[in-house]
């Protein structure tokens, strides 16, 4: 008789670690399977950690979690090839503990989180890829691995296997990701002395800045760039919708886009001298509310990126991952306590909990955003140039009177989008955000 577990968790990212931790802490017999050499070695993120979601799971995480810098300043830059127009928000309120968000390095953070999972009593097996789910009709009974004993069984399997969601696809729970529902992001980590980062970004020890970038850096594709400050490194990256990469007539390669960003005159001085130590790529599920597949069934639940739980409008993902992992785990714990079978009927409580949480509420709020952005490339290829152009016209002192400058600016907007376009764009944005 093969070994039977209360629950198997596939994957050791934020959602899988949270699910395994929560169930193990409640005394359940949990097996977690990770394909990487150690938890974190396959995981890629920007990466910003929002404290709130983790606090609900490990309230004292700040004692020993590997956190890089707490973020005190958020910058948004709208760029053309030569310039940027930016808004910066910095507040001393963000400089008082407990801090609201941190930059992290995922390989280190996930490894730390995993030690907590094991301390809570879960059994972790690394370097093992789950090749498929073991099905009995429509019911998931366990998983088949590419190593060791091969087959393991559990009352419920939680799929935390990341954006590619290989296992659910193979089992026919949902289909292939459409390219217009995922963004492809590439990034590099650049090392430099702490003091250099602090001087360049106008911050003190442990204080951090994040910069979100949009405009010509994505060559008209729907996407954004980012630059984050870690303790003694910077993370710089750019991501665009995969369908846009594919359809780009210039056939621009993702790493060319990244290189162009690194050489932008406003970026280059910030990263100068940085020693590049790693280059990563990752897909981000950005289809939002309408793209969320069925996330539970007989003997299975899907959490994190695997279920498409990302709020692209707010650059949130890992907090949704942790929250979905926690809600799935709590569903299992409650079912176990009530002596219920892990049927679809029982596990529907997970979906109900999601609907009640900020996860589905936020995704619902921005449900039209992906469609609006797809049908409105002007937000990425026309407006950035208009904004930087307006700023340049306004701030260049050249003997032209201000009234004329004002007319030039309005004229440039009108010529590019006409009144009807300007109004409909404003309306679209408003509708997508509201």
């Amino acid at each position, binding site marked *: 008789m093969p070994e039977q577990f209360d629950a198997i968790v596939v994957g050791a990212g934020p959602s899988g670690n949270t699910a395994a931790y929560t169930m193990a802490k409640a005394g359940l017999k949990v097996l977690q399977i990770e*394909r*990487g*050499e150690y938890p*974190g*070695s*396959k*995981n*890629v*993120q920007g*990466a910003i950690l929002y404290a709130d979601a983790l606090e609900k799971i490990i309230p004292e995480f700040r004692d020993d979690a590997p956190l890089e810098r707490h973020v005190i300043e958020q910058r948004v830059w709208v760029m053309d090839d030569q310039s940027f127009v930016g808004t910066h928000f910095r507040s001393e309120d963000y400089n008082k503990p407990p801090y609201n968000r941190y930059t992290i*390095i*995922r*390989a*280190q953070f*996930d490894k730390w989180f995993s030690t907590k999972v094991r301390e809570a009593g879960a059994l972790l097996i*690394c*370097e*093992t*890829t789950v*090749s498929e789910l073991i099905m009995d009709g429509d019911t998931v009974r366990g998983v088949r*691995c*590419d*190593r060791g004993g091969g087959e393991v069984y559990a009352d419920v399997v939680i799929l935390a296997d990341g*954006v*590619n969601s*290989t296992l659910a696809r193979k089992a026919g729970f949902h289909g*292939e*990701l*459409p*390219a217009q529902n*995922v963004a*492809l992001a*590439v990034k*590099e*980590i650049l090392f430099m002395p702490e003091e250099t980062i602090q001087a360049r970004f106008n911050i003190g020890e442990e204080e951090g800045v994040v910069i979100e970038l949009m405009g010509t850096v994505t*060559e008209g594709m729907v996407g954004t760039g980012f630059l984050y400050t870690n303790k003694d*490194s910077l993370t710089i990256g750019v991501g665009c919708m*995969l*369908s846009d*990469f*594919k359809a780009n007539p*210039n*056939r*621009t*390669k*993702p*790493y*060319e886009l990244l*290189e*162009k960003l690194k*050489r932008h005159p406003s970026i280059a001085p910030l990263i100068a001298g940085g020693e*590049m*130590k*790693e*280059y*990563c*790529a*990752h*897909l981000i599920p950005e289809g939002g509310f309408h793209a969320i597949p069925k996330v539970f069934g007989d003997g299975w639940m899907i959490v994190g990126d695997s279920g498409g739980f990302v709020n692209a409008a707010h650059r949130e993902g890992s907090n949704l991952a942790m929250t979905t992992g926690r809600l799935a785990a709590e569903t299992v714990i409650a079912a176990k306590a009530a002596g219920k079978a892990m049927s679809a009927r029982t596990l529907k409580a997970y979906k109900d909990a999601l609907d009640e949480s900020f996860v589905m509420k936020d995704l619902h709020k921005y449900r039209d955003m992906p469609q609006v952005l797809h049908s409105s490339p002007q937000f990425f290829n026309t407006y950035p140039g208009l904004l930087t152009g307006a700023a340049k016209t306004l701030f260049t002192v050249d003997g032209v009177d201000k009234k004329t400058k004002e007319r030039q600016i309005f004229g440039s907007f009108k010529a590019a989008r006409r009144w009807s376009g300007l109004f409909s764009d404003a309306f679209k944005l408003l509708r997508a955000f509201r």
Partner: protein
Amino acid sequence: MSTLAVNVEEKLFQNRYKVDAGRPHITIKDAAVCSNTCRSQACTYVCPAACYKSEGNRMVTLITDGCLECGSCRVICTEHSNVAWEYPRGGHGVLFKFG
């Protein structure tokens, strides 16, 4: 227009890999589909690790050693579904130091 020459091999050289020699985790199902049916050969410019190369004779070749395991090639091959995509065997493939 993209005029920037970027050596992606130099970037990938910074990464740590445990290559599963002789067992590529991604394969092209039918090479003839890439050569004859697929017009865009988008994998040859979308793959962030440049694993797919377009050869002079319209052949597409795939070497997975530098693969970052993102999944883009499989997702964009919508019309032809010509990419057989699995994760590498446990412990193999890219091993992110920072992620």
